[in-house]
């Protein structure tokens, strides 16, 4: 049996002998590493998930106001609409040579808290929400007709409130559910959308005219829309930006969508920096915990090592055993960190999906995770190095025979 095996065996036995201390150390390292990974990776994943959930649109045209509010309202179905546009404004932008797709939408109603958005059937026929993929309706469902009181339901809405094909429902006025504001109109569910992992899953879609002509709505808004979802050709965004945002004063063009989302996330840069500092502190705490654990067990193991040295254990066996002990704690801690990170990511993903419909997908195992695991191991070995050297040099006389 070689030095490596003997020292590993001694280390493993030391771990199992001090199982509670070892488990506490592994748990603490896992907690530090998991939170560290979570803090770093979540920001990246959330940014990416939001960018990918923009539904394949380059821009949104809406009432004069905040670009961010427009994007959050039109694409993520959050916030209130900043106002309305005239139908003529829709026609103008639709006919602009730089616009390849234009879908008007209108909102103002809900069903049990889920937004009802009016739009044209074209959105579900022609638009690709991600490259090469159109919205799909589960067979035998179909897309609503332009002038009928029909609806298609997002996957999450269907799953959560149990709307099925052929069900009928009354919309409620406003974006928040209030039982006293029920409209008399009755809508028929004619299709259930397949899951997209985007905020579309959280919406009930009806014909544009349905929202505009809903019983109880102001007659003056019969030709009003909340905004237009756009895809642009080439660099026409620049020209449209000048036309609507710099020269015009009646509408706002939120373009380009990814940059607006980035500026949104940049508002939280201070929070990211704070999390980063906390994460680094957590990593240091992890290292110190390993050090404290080793020091506590080494104090108990002094005599064991003195006996081993008298039996002929070399420096490599003694220091190797301590380094192995730390390496095993670190490795288990690194594994625990990854497990905790996955659990945190999935919980956060589920929470975000529930709240805004954005799917973060499964956690990605990239270089950063492996580097973090390597760093945990390195930190563990560095923490163990000094105690190992100190123990080897410590007096055998004290350990073996205090009266010698």
């Amino acid at each position, binding site marked *: 049996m070689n030095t490596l095996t*003997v020292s590993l065996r001694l280390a493993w036995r030391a771990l199992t*002998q001090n199982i509670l201390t070892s488990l506490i150390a592994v748990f603490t390292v896992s907690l530090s590493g998991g939170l560290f990974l979570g803090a770093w990776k979540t920001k990246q994943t959330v940014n990416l998930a939001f960018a990918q959930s923009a539904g394949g649109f380059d821009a949104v045209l809406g009432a004069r106001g905040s670009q961010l509010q427009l994007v959050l309202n039109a694409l993520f179905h959050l916030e209130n609409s900043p106002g309305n546009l005239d139908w003529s404004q829709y026609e103008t932008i639709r006919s602009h040579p730089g616009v390849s797709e234009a879908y008007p939408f209108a909102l103002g109603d809900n069903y049990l808290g889920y937004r009802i958005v009016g739009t044209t059937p074209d959105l579900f026929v022609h638009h690709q929400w991600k490259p090469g993929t159109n919205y799909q309706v589960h067979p035998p469902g179909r897309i609503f007709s332009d002038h009928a009181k029909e609806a298609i339901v997002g996957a999450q809405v269907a799953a959560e409130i149990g709307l099925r094909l052929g069900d009928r429902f009354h919309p409620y006025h406003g974006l928040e559910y209030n039982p006293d504001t029920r409209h008399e109109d009755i809508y028929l569910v004619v299709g259930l959308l397949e899951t997209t992992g985007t905020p579309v899953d959280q919406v009930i879609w009806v014909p544009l005219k349905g929202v505009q002509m809903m019983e109880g709505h102001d007659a003056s808004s019969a030709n009003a829309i909340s905004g237009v979802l756009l895809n642009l050709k080439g660099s026409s965004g620049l020209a449209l930006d000048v036309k609507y945002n710099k020269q015009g004063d009646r509408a706002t063009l939120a373009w380009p969508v990814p940059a607006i989302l980035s500026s949104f996330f940049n508002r939280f840069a201070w929070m990211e920096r704070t999390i980063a500092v906390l994460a680094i502190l957590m990593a240091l705490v992890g290292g110190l915990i390993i050090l404290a654990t080793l020091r506590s067990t080494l104090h108990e193991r002094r005599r064991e090592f003195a006996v081993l040295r*008298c039996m*002929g254990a070399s420096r490599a066996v003694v220091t190797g055993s301590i380094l192995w002990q730390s390496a095993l704690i670190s490795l288990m801690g690194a594994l625990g960190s990854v497990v905790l990170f996955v659990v945190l990511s999935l919980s956060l993903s589920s929470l975000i999906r529930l709240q805004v419909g954005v799917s973060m997908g499964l956690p990605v195992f990239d270089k950063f995770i492996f580097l973090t695991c390597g760093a945990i191991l390195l930190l563990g070995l560095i923490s163990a190095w000094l105690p190992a050297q100190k123990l080897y040099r410590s007096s055998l006389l004290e350990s073996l025979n205090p009266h010698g």
Partner: protein
Amino acid sequence: MPLTPCDKKLLHMSLLTVEDLQKSFASPSGQLTAVLDVPSFTLNHKEQVAFRGASGSGKTTFLHLLAGVLPADSGKISFDGHSLHSMKESSRDQLRAAKIGYVFQSFNLLNGFTCLENILLAMNLNGSSNRSWAFTLLEAVGLLEFKDYLPRQLSIGQQQRIGIARALVNRPKLVLADEPTGNLDPANTDLCLGMLCSLCQQWGSSLILVSHDPRVIGQFEKSIVWEDLNQVTQSKLTTA
């Protein structure tokens, strides 16, 4: 066991020679305190010798120096053809694992390992692993049926017998026993001492035993009063 002519010849060849061996330790105030000054000592092959001396008089330090665990400040130690004083630490470790067995006063065994594992570990440190030999030794100390017991499940006397088996596992040329009966009752003292001496004789190991117990010392043909060998006197040690 009667000595053969070959044994008798070997008995007169020295296994261990010590010349002008000195060792000091730094006191808490930083001053060097001499604990050991042995001008000369010789031990022959298969010879068994007991040192009698007071506690704290440097006997354990002497054993550590002989085992190469501690380096001497000056002097020479020759053991089985090796000059310990000029050897590198790693070579001393190897030599100790292969040729020197150690028995302590108490807490001899590694608590997390069974009796068998304690013995096998000593073999592993010498780069070997022979379970049947470990069983032979356990049988020789009368504890084969306890092979899977942890040390805490044994009595002090039984633990010391396992310690003896472990010290002999690599068929060492020299066994160093540091107050091996210090924690034992008279019956176990006799049992363990008898076992240690007879097994050393049986497998050809020399034995140095240190004790402050006259009853133990009395069982050895050759005994040395430690204070006669160590030129650093007890009064110096206690007043330093």
